[in-house]
């Protein structure tokens, strides 16, 4: 019962954060509301007994990625006058809702036909560091290595793109 109550609190918070991200004009407010979404999603992962992903969501997403985005927003020093004028925003929003409503309702219908189960929290032996690590390094070793190469490539790419180019000129 308490878990259900927590689920509703977290889901309402995450939807509100996402709506705030879409509607706020300044990207700083949008980033703040996205952080609310990330943290409540971490709570949902904990309710789904994914303990490692819960911690990683807090550290990597709400910590690292969002602080990187906030750092860049503050670095560029965006004033309200710098923001693009979004005159047709409401029309685009209405068009997007009209486009997405049938798709979303279809998907919700599909999801409702799935076999349901109670979302009670599984105790030991599920979702901890040891169990997920075993699966990761036994069955998913090749994708893990490919992702590490991807991280290396993006690191080099970011340095090359954003680094100084004075030498060449």
């Amino acid at each position, binding site marked *: 019962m308490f878990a259900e109550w927590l*689920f509703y609190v977290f*889901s309402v918070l*995450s*939807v509100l954060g*996402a709506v705030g*991200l*879409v509607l706020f004009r300044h*990207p700083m407010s*949008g*980033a703040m509301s*996205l952080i609310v979404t990330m943290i409540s*999603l971490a709570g*949902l*992962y904990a309710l*789904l007994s*994914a303990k490692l992903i819960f911690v990683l*969501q807090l550290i*990597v*997403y709400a910590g*690292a*990625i969002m602080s*990187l*985005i906030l750092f*860049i*927003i503050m670095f*560029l020093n965006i004033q309200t006058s*710098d*923001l*693009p004028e*979004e005159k047709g*925003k409401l029309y*685009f929003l209405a*068009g*997007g*809702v009209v486009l*997405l409503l049938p798709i*979303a309702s279809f*998907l*919700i219908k599909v*999801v*409702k036909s*799935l076999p*349901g*189960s*109670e*979302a009670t929290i*599984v105790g030991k032996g599920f979702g901890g560091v040891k*169990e*997920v690590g075993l*699966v990761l390094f036994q*069955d*998913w070793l090749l994708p893990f290595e490919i*992702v590490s190469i991807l*991280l290396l*490539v*993006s690191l080099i*790419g*970011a340095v090359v*793109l*954003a680094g100084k180019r004075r030498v060449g000129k």
Partner: protein
Amino acid sequence: MIQHYLILSIILFCLGILGVISRRNVFTVFMSIELMLNAANLAFITFSRLHLSMDGQVLALLVMAVAAAEAALALAVVILLHKHKGNLDTNVFSLLKG
């Protein structure tokens, strides 16, 4: 009860698509893409709980790594574009138009 998690994931994904198609601020578009990745992660973890297998959680882990790589590269590109154009409007960034 477990379907509610999937419905929430669908709602968050649709909100991310709405953010991408209705906003013209580069940062908001980028954060909407992050929101869509998060919604996909929620679906992965819900299915992992439904089938009591941990493959979905490993996939969510890999998605997080891809999102981190994407954030590093995309923010570098945004800094470059802001340096060149002095603007954050996505309509200005049409350099590849033929």
